[in-house]
């Protein structure tokens, strides 16, 4: 599964994208975020407060209860601030 990070989530994690081999229990966006958080280090920092993180699956905004499956592209980022 491909995971993308943007803005300060990217900075804390220390990379912009990676391919992860998440366990099958990580079947939602929220479960994946918790699994990443448990990796510790920058991941623990980036996902310390999930209320501050937003997500997209395959380039569509989703909530943390959204299901994910192998082959999906999941992105984590702060609330957007363009315009």
């Amino acid at each position, binding site marked *: 599964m491909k995971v993308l990070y943007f*803005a300060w989530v990217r900075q804390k994690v220390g990379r912009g994208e990676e391919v992860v081999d998440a366990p099958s229990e990580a079947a939602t966006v929220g479960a994946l975020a918790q699994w990443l958080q448990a990796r510790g280090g920058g991941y623990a920092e980036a996902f310390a407060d999930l209320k501050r993180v937003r997500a997209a699956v395959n380039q569509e905004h989703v909530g943390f209860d959204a299901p994910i499956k192998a082959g999906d592209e999941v992105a984590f980022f702060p609330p957007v601030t*363009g315009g």
Partner: protein
Amino acid sequence: MTVKVQREDFDPGAEIARLHAGRSDIGAVVSFVGLVRGESHGEALRSMTLEHFPGMTERELERIADEARARWSLQGVTVVHRIGELKPGERIVLVVTAAAHRRAAFEAGEFLMDYLKTRAPFWKRELRPSGEHWVEARGSDDEAAARWRRD
């Protein structure tokens, strides 16, 4: 409908003219230009850097523009958003709407900006004397977007 994400500056007058040139069914063209302000949190801003999510940004801007066209009778929509490093006074974003009548053009323009601010995947990082700071999302932008929500 035109959606562009680019490093280069844009020309508001040229984009306005492009929407209505050679046509006589358009009575109203509204444009919005967003600019980098030189002060933030009481400090002078040195520069602002815009990061985005390539691919999703364009798709999201197109979805927002489609939503505007579904709600109002529009004869043209242009959205241009810059990325990269910008200095105070520089243009960040342009939205242009064309319609037969002014109310649709004004409302659609304001709707597009409210939705863009809360849905389009852009993030701003400010460089100020105290260091680098990611801009925090504002509750007032969520409220502005919520005005357009239909039950």
